[in-house]
């Protein structure tokens, strides 16, 4: 049994299996997305302000929450799925994410290294020279 894999445009709110999705089902998808996004946003603000969590882990937690929320937006608002009709959209997205990661992680890595290897400020340099 061969499954038809015609392309579906990104952002198309209809379901592939059932053809045109009914109005209530479409509203339900957006509403679920909204509820999840609001929950994750509220968690982000709580994490940033609470004293209960281990300080250095907070940044990582915030990034994880943002990644999760991005996923919610992609699935429930932009309707990017893993279905066969969505292969092109997902591939383009994967390439975009790869580029974004290279740019951001690469910049941070290189600049942190540069800062570490930078000459110390003049007063420290003087201390070094005295020995």
């Amino acid at each position, binding site marked *: 049994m061969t499954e038809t894999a015609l392309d579906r445009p990104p952002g*198309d*709110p209809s379901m*592939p299996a059932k053809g045109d999705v009914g109005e209530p089902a479409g509203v339900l998808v957006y509403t679920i997305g909204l509820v999840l996004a609001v929950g994750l946003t509220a968690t982000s603000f709580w994490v940033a302000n609470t004293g209960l969590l281990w300080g250095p882990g907070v940044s990582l937690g915030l990034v994880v929450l943002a990644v999760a929320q991005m996923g919610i937006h992609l699935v429930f608002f932009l309707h990017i799925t893993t279905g066969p009709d969505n292969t092109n959209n997902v591939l383009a997205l994967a390439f975009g994410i790869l580029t974004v990661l290279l740019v951001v992680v690469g*910049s*941070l890595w290189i600049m942190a290294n540069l800062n570490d290897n930078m000459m110390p400020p003049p007063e420290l340099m003087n201390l070094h020279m005295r020995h």
Partner: protein
Amino acid sequence: MNVAATLSEARPNVAASEAGPASKPVIVAYGFWIFLLSDIVMFATLFAGYAVLARATDGGPSGVQLFSQASVAIETVCLLASSYTCGLMSLAVKSRRRIGTYFGGLVTFALGLSFLALELREFADMIARAAGPQRSAFLSAFFTLVGCHGLHVTAGLVWLVLMMVQVAVRGFHPTVQRRLACFSLFWHALDIVWVWLFTVVYLMGVRA
């Protein structure tokens, strides 16, 4: 709009390679998706610049002194709600309901405008406290990154008004429907950028 599903119903066993070129809505939305991804790559470079310069305050004010979390929370709510109403608007467009489209467009516009007003007030407040973009590298990067997102929102609002005019004049013509689909993609993508903005700039900035 849902040409793919109708096609697959009509010819259930046709392979994707034999189906011929994709329909126009698919091609247009896919092209716009590629544009959005390139736009997001541009934002990534601005984010990288900001992250590198976030501590370069040159003795000036830092994020802890400048950012108001309450105002950021309200901006986030506005933008998230407008993304939701934009989704409802695209459902109304699909089922060709004029009133629903106008109403969704109006609420989306109002929420986007409130977001923009709050952001501009924040900018004006910072500049009044001598924390303008020329004060330090951190503030230059901040105004570039957040301002660029604000410009995108402004462009989106102008686009939304134009689309409402087109719906009024031309009705749900296929061209208008494709443009509305692109608009909702654009608006949702802006919300994704904002998620990273409030996480990286405001929440992490307030902690540092």
